[in-house]
């Protein structure tokens, strides 16, 4: 609230991305597999924390809105994009409905002119989320967490 609305701060990259855990049904041998299909579709599967599971992601170029609390309609939306995408798409769409941790979100970057207001300061993704396309969210948060105390203590200790 101190920094405006979410719509003002979040610059959309025009991508929807879903992440979820699936049973390990294909052999990855430590590899991260990515598959591109035309019309802006990307499917990826990578190893999970345990040998029995893998982590899947479905990305699509879209600015469509979706119901935050309605997972079935979110998966319906993905089906409309990925039904003919090929590779593991059909299996992943089925697995998405059974996944305990399915999550869909739009991809964007937080861009603000200032990261402080009054006695409030923003660190990490709240102030400068870079997006999965660039990575570095954790790195920037750690740099910020280092610089902010260093910046503040120099004067406040007097």
């Amino acid at each position, binding site marked *: 609230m101190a920094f405006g609305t979410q719509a003002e701060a979040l610059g959309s*990259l*025009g*991508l929807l991305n879903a992440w979820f855990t699936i049973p390990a049904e294909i052999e990855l041998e*430590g*590899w*991260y*597999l*990515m*598959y*591109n*299909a*035309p*019309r*802006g*579709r*990307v*499917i*990826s599967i*990578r*190893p999970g924390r345990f040998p029995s599971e893998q982590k899947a992601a479905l*990305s*699509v*170029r879209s600015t469509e809105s979706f119901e935050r609390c309605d997972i079935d309609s979110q998966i319906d939306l993905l089906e409309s994009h990925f039904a003919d995408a090929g*590779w593991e798409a059909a299996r992943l769409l089925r697995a998405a409905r059974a996944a305990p941790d399915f999550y869909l979100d739009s991809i964007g*970057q937080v*861009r603000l002119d*200032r*990261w*402080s207001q009054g*006695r409030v*300061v923003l660190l990490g993704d709240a*102030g*400068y989320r*870079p*997006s*999965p*396309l*660039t*990575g*570095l969210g954790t*790195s*920037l948060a750690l*740099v*910020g967490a280092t*610089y*902010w105390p260093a*910046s*503040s203590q*120099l*004067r*406040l200790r*007097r």
Partner: protein
Amino acid sequence: MREESALDDAFDRYESRMRPYVEQGQELPPGGTDGYAPRSQAAHSAGLDLNALVAAVATASLDGAHLQQGRRHQPAQLRQTSRQPSLRTQGGACCNATLRCGCVYPVRSESD
């Protein structure tokens, strides 16, 4: 009053130090979203060559990684590595290269 002023100074110092890192970290890879998820078949095909070049350049400077050209219509492969790319490398190339390498070019890291 003095504390307020000190806080303002601290905020300014924090922002001036952080801003270059953030601008660098938020810089999208060449092609932006189109490079990651091309819309058209033509862009998809053309992008693959660019992706290969970018991936080759990116991985060449990373942990002894190299690009291994694969066959079309296969998913890209990126072996997980225990090494952490540097801030500069990850923001400029490494992480993006893994996303851009598309469905043609497996990227293998020799660091494993």
